[in-house]
């Protein structure tokens, strides 16, 4: 596992990573069950989103708190702010148009 931006945040990051990875494995499983109905999927995602908050929410908040300071110290906050304004990316981008390899 990679280290965090700031060494002080690394233990929290590893704790959060472990929490997320366990949750994520379970999360992907039912996606493979193709016979699930739309309603079943929606209910499942809702439940998993809540579960994520319940299980990993606390360590996530602590980690967030830690890295906010690191981002400021490293001087990347204004750059990050600018990047967020230019590309908010709140929603997935539409699928890329497949193009031939030599196209420019």
């Amino acid at each position, binding site marked *: 596992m*990679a*280290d*965090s*931006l700031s060494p002080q*945040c690394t233990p929290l*990051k590893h704790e*959060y990573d472990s929490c*997320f990875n366990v949750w*994520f494995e379970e*999360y*992907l499983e*039912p*996606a493979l069950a193709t016979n699930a109905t739309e309603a079943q*999927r*929606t209910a*499942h*995602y*809702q439940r*998993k*989103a*809540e579960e*994520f908050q319940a299980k990993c929410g606390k360590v*996530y908040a602590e*980690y*967030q708190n830690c*890295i906010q300071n*690191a*981002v400021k110290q*490293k001087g*990347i906050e204004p*750059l*990050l702010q*600018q*990047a*967020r304004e230019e*590309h908010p*990316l*709140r929603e*997935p*981008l539409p*699928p*890329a148009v*497949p*193009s031939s*390899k030599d*196209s*420019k």
Partner: protein
Amino acid sequence: MHFFSQAFNYEHPWSHVTFLDRTVDPKTGVIRTERILGCKQKTPGWILALFGGSEDAFVREISFVDPATQNATITSVNLSLSQFATCFERIQYSPAPGNRTSFTQTAEVQARMQLWRSAADGLERWLVQRFEQNAHLGKLGFTDVLRTLEERLEQRQTTAA
């Protein structure tokens, strides 16, 4: 703006990865993750002398994982030196026939020419100042080396005498 589409390996591994934000959409199940990736890069010495800064390079990355459609998209843009140029990269993994996964990668490279022109005057002054400051530091460093050498020579001479 320039586009390219190719794959390559960076010489330097990502040394640290920081999560900024992660959300799970309860309706669609899509996981959105915002991260900062940092790596030590071998910046040419003259760039450090001119722009100051550090050898740490930072990249902002946003990924979307959709378990329902099994699509994953990853977009990334450089934060470091983004005042001069940006590289907006996009990678997409999606299911392909024959139980395979298709991988698409595109990138847009854009120089911030307008910013350059409007800021050119102030930037030049600032750069000259930075250069002077750093040149001065470099000189100090070398003076220290010379002084140490001199001291060692003196010590050797006194013990020999």
